């Protein structure tokens, strides 16, 4: 309704955007504005323009240091990292209980395992396909603990990001990392995850909100998948 004018001379949409940016609307009106802005880029732009106009007022807010616990709570609310969800992490915690010497011993064992891994494992590859298109080409170097992902015919979604999952023989998806549709990425994987990246394990890509799934499992549609095979 950009062409209807208020008595005062601004398009109704622009007034609504200004009222939202100023902060004068009631709860239900704010919700309606936010919902509309999430699907109407032009309207979202009107709001952003008003936020920019009022921005110099932001200099008047004084700086106040929040308590240190706030960051801890934020970090706790983010998606779990692989290190926190794998058995290795729990083992490391367990080992830490025995003190530094035990920890160092464990680290040495781990290093030896990884080294042996590099001797015995060949790189694995997968093409991740869906809907008749090859979306990504993946190379897994379990020895080095890296997964390289090259986009082929992946068209990015404006609101969601592609996330890569490893699904080993137990059928449970493990988060690997976020991909890009416009450039290759190399993701580091934990030794635990590397151990699961075997021949015939499945790699899948789902579309997730920016920042990735926060549940540790795919929350968006799985758009493509492929099996790991040896070269």
């Amino acid at each position, binding site marked *: 309704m950009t062409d209807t004018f*208020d008595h*005062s*001379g*601004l398009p109704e949409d622009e*007034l609504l955007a*200004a*009222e939202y*940016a*100023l*902060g*004068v*609307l*009631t*709860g239900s009106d*704010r919700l309606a504005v936010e919902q509309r802005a999430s699907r109407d880029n032009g309207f979202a*732009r009107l709001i*952003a323009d008003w*936020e*920019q*106009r*009022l*921005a*110099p*007022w*932001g*200099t*008047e*807010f*004084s*700086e*106040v*240091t*929040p*308590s240190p*616990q*706030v*960051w801890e*709570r*934020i*970090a706790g*609310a*983010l*998606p779990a*990292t692989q290190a926190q969800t794998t058995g290795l992490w729990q083992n490391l915690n367990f080992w830490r209980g025995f003190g530094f010497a035990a920890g160092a011993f464990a680290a040495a064992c781990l290093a030896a395992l990884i080294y042996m891994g590099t001797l015995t494992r060949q790189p694995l590859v997968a093409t991740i396909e869906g809907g008749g298109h090859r979306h990504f080409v993946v190379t897994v170097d379990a020895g080095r603990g890296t997964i390289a992902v090259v986009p082929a015919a992946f068209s990015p979604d404006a609101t969601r*990001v592609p996330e890569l999952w490893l699904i080993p023989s137990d059928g449970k998806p493990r988060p690997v*990392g*976020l991909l*890009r549709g416009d450039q290759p*990425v190399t993701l580091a994987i934990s030794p635990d995850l590397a151990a699961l990246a075997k021949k015939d394990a499945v790699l899948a890509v789902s579309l997730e*909100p*920016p*920042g*990735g799934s926060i549940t540790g499992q795919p929350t968006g549609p799985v758009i493509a998948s492929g099996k790991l095979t040896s070269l």
Partner: protein
Amino acid sequence: MDLDANRRLIATALARIPSGDRTALQTVYRLTSAKLFGVCLRILGERSEAEDVLQEVYVTVWRRAADFDESRASPMTWLIAIARNRSIDRLRASRQNRNMDPIDDAADVPDSAAGADSALERVQADAGLYRCLNELASHERAALRGAFFDGNTYEDLAARMKVPLGTMKSWIRRALIKLKVCLEQR
């Protein structure tokens, strides 16, 4: 320029968040949390509630960092808008703690960016918004400030300034229009 260097650091860190980089979010937090906490605290007036909302703000930043477009907004403008919006949402949900002290616009002093963090910010601010605010009537300026800094609704402001709701709506709408016209004249 210090301010530019800071802006660059924040923008660069924001750009790394969509790939899932937690240290990037921590960098943004380190550089901006005192300011954003100041925003939440000013609007909500109560520390523990402001800290709750501050947490929501950075989780929102984590999820929406891909929406940040440096060509459209400065990183601080974008972040402050998120902090204000989440604080106002909280205020609307609780309907408590909001500043309802009567506003006496006769005691209004001309707006200036005296609270700005640096001389450069003051100069930039005075040139635009503050110059135009000072062209408004004092009751219009007082109403806009009550909305922006105290998170007041039309109803709140009508009560604080002791005028009918319809009057308050037309004051604010007229003031917003004048503000836009003035800012575009530069």
